[in-house]
């Protein structure tokens, strides 16, 4: 308990600092795992809105389907996972 509360923060050489914002993280995540594109029956691909894509992700991951970038969704996006896309277009 005698540890100093205020610590000194150091920049470590070679540290892969992922200082992406949550929005950037979401965009990359939704695109990488196939949520941003939908392939119509006719075979034509079309982009979906982020909100729709988020809802689809939240359904896949068993989260509350808010369609917004809420805390639980951001936390889930930061979890380690399989690299196979969730949606195949």
């Amino acid at each position, binding site marked *: 308990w005698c540890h100093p509360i205020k610590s000194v923060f150091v920049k470590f050489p070679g540290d892969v600092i992922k200082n992406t914002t949550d929005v950037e993280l979401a965009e990359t995540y939704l695109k990488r795992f196939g949520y941003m594109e939908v392939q119509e029956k006719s075979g034509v691909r079309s982009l979906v809105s982020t909100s729709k894509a988020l809802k689809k992700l939240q359904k896949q991951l068993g989260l509350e389907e808010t369609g917004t970038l809420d805390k639980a969704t951001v936390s889930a996006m930061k979890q380690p*996972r399989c690299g196979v896309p969730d949606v195949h277009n």
Partner: protein
Amino acid sequence: YQTFPGDLKWDHNDITYRVLNYSPDMEESLIDDAFARAFKVWSDVTPLTFTRLYDGTADIMISFGKLDHGDPYPFDGTDGLLAHAYPPGEGIQGDAHFDDDEYWTLGNGPAVKTSYGNAEGAMCHFPFLFEGKSYSTCITEGRTDGLPWCATTADYDKDQKYGFCPSELLFTFGGNSDGAECVFPFTFLGKQYDSCTTEGRTDGYRWCATTANFDTDKKFGFCPNRDTAVTGGNSEGEPCQFPFIFLGKTYTSCTSEGRSDGKLWCATTSNFDTDQKWGFCPDKGYSLFLVAAHEFGHALGLDHSNIQDALMFPMYKYVADFSLNEDDIEGIQYLYGPKIPTKPSTTSSPVSTAKPTAQTPKPTAPTVPTTTPSVDACQVEIFDTITEIQGELHFFKDGLYWKTSNGGKGNHKGPFRISERWPALPAKINTAFEDHLTKKIYFFADTRFWVYNGQEVQGPRRIEKLGLPSTLQKVEGALQRGKGKVILFSGENFWRLDVKTQRIDKGYPRFTDQKFGGVPVDSHDVFLYKGHFYFCREIYYWRMNSRMQVNRVGYVKYDLLRC
């Protein structure tokens, strides 16, 4: 559960796999075992069988890689993406890739398998007591040679059980040095190195020379990671250096000081302030078994599930006592159907063709017979035959056999009586081999052969039935060559048997020395073991690799039997 568009699946049930390379995080046999258990998760609930190949092309090719590892989907360093796999099909389809920037364990921290010592390859037990002090990592205390070791029980002072931990001073893996240990210092491009290095490589794997001069000898191997090896940072794979100085203060263990994310780190030299060399401390890591079982689900045709407790749910979650979820079972059985219950294996089974005799005992798993004859395998000059069965080398002699333990790393066991495990066989066996695809075991004695499938036996039959000449006195060796082909040796000739058709292929016999140059043409035994061909004559063996190069000559007794 979901399947891939078009219900992609394999059009055969006997699936083959091959492990192309290894991660330095765990000893090879631990990685092999994790993959084998991961396949068993699926074979337990379907008719699928999984057979490992050591060369050639398998349905499922397994490899470790970092970042851009050659396909269009690069990994992303530590954490994040752990692995990926492709649905069934040709080429890269069906393959599984694992991100080697992750720290691979069995899910509960460093998985350290010992070698040598007196613990027969047991795992380290952390923490353990040594001279009254508790240790949670491998140590060099008590030794002058710097070899890291650990106890394999909680209390070394009481139990005295120990083994050596993986380290570049003990062995290397991969490369071209057959596991030889590093030689320090060694010269590379004119510069001296006294520790493993990533110099000269772009994939970040640490390596060393196994002679004093790589520039002239070109002999190298990859360095296994020590249990205190760091991940990430700028010294990946190097061990923590304790004590180390940080901001003028001395640390004897990992710390999160200086970081806002709370992650534990250590320096890899004695002074971070001057050298700035560091990495993250080993944590629980990711269970290779669990991640592999998930990826192999993809390789069999399953897509991600939205059931959070299912194995095919996309997020990683460590589970100690794993079992498949109903959702996973429904998915895989939708593709391949349920497992076919196997027939009870008693000799009275109607399909067995062996003639039961009054002495045929009830088949049971081999146990050490209570009246073990006092024949010591190390006293045997020449064995009737040697072959690998279920991963262990078996040495047959005059009605008895011995077998290695622990995948060949432990002491040999036995003797056991042949008649107790294979009652139909005679005492003297000329050769034997296990068919990798069907797991059936073929035994040859003089001009007859038997085929054991578990406890069921077919035979004896005459070897002419296979298409061998009637003048042939005996078969002296056998080499499994994959794709259901086995090479049978006799005298200076060899024939190629197609196990499926049970016939010799056209164009044989051929002369042994035409294809297997550099080995004795009159070997009295030939067998395949861990991907190498062994030609035996008297007390010696000549070992040939898959590129038909003799890369070792040694003593059967010391190298294989470990006398």
